[in-house]
């Protein structure tokens, strides 16, 4: 995954994912949690997460738990990067100005 700041194709689902992360930029969210909050199907959600991670807007890491003691497998958690936070804010600001980014 490249960590370059690349242009991301915006779709309605991508905006919904970004909006969810923008509510609390420091929060770590798994794919299951994003699905619960946005209601986006897995077939659409994971390509978006990987696309944003590949563009450098997100970073991901494994959940720091012991699967045997937790009784479940560890999850992959996503978080906005500073670049992602800046770009996502710009996108939503452009919407507020009525200009599509």
């Amino acid at each position, binding site marked *: 995954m490249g960590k370059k700041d690349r242009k991301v194709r915006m779709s309605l689902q991508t905006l919904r994912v970004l909006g969810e992360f923008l509510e609390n930029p420091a929060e770590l969210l*798994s*794919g299951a949690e994003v699905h619960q909050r946005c209601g986006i*199907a897995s077939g*659409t959600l*994971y390509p978006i997460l990987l696309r944003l991670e590949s563009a450098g807007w997100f970073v991901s890491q494994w*959940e720091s738990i012991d699967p045997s003691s937790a009784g479940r*497998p560890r999850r*992959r958690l996503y978080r906005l990067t500073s670049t992602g936070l800046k770009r996502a804010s710009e996108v939503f600001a452009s919407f507020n100005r009525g200009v599509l980014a």
Partner: protein
Amino acid sequence: MSQRSVTHWLIHHAARHAPESLSERLEEEWLADLEARTSMMSRLRFAIGCCWATQVIVFEHQPERVAVSSPAIGPKSLIAYADQNFSFVSLRSSMFFLVLSLHIVLIYGFMTALSHTNRNAIPDPLQNQARPRSRPNELPPLLPAPDLKHVPIEVPKLETELRYEPDPDGGVTTDTVHEHLPPTPPTPSTPHVAKRVEGGTGAGFPDTADFYPSVSIRLGEQGSSTVRVCVDAKGRLTSDPTTAKGSGSTRLDEGALRLARAGSGHYRAATEDGQPVNSCYSLGIRFQLKN
């Protein structure tokens, strides 16, 4: 194959077809997120969605396509877009059939499970057992023949005499039937014959012209209709008059019947020895146009 193993198999299948660098990570991530799903359908939808996600991820991780066509034909982006679309349609169709087949499997599973439940709920069908015939080839014994004797039956003789007596006044005859059981002894004197006078129309009887049907007047229909009426001693109808002989025109016959009904109470009753009695007789009504 249980539902859990189906969803795991789908996720394994999807992750195995993902780019090599992401295969293990996606499988672990998806299996972890699968555990967050509670319902069976939700887990199944998630697993099928992962298959779809793999296709998209594989497509996005492919090296950029190079247009083989001349730039004069069209922009490179357009050619690449067309290429994407062809691939997308094929992928979409395959996923559609995959989802369709899964639905069929699920529906079949539900139906077979339900039919098993229903089969247990329905009691066993009744067992029909034919009773063996004790004497299949033997006929029942015949009853003894009854002892019949010829008994003569005597029927008393019925004597009927029909006598017609002319009406001394108007030539109207009256039919009288006398039945004699047993025969009457001969009378020394001649029988008394009542003097009968038939009835007819009396005072105040409606005018025929008032009941001449207007349509018949316009069409010039004329004719005579014979109506049979039954009146009591006071000249009132005792039953509805009927047409005894038609005029050939239904309208004239209907007009005659209306006239006969309207004349109830104005008939002259028949008399026997001067006393009015109930009687039935025919009444001729003629409809004729004047020049």
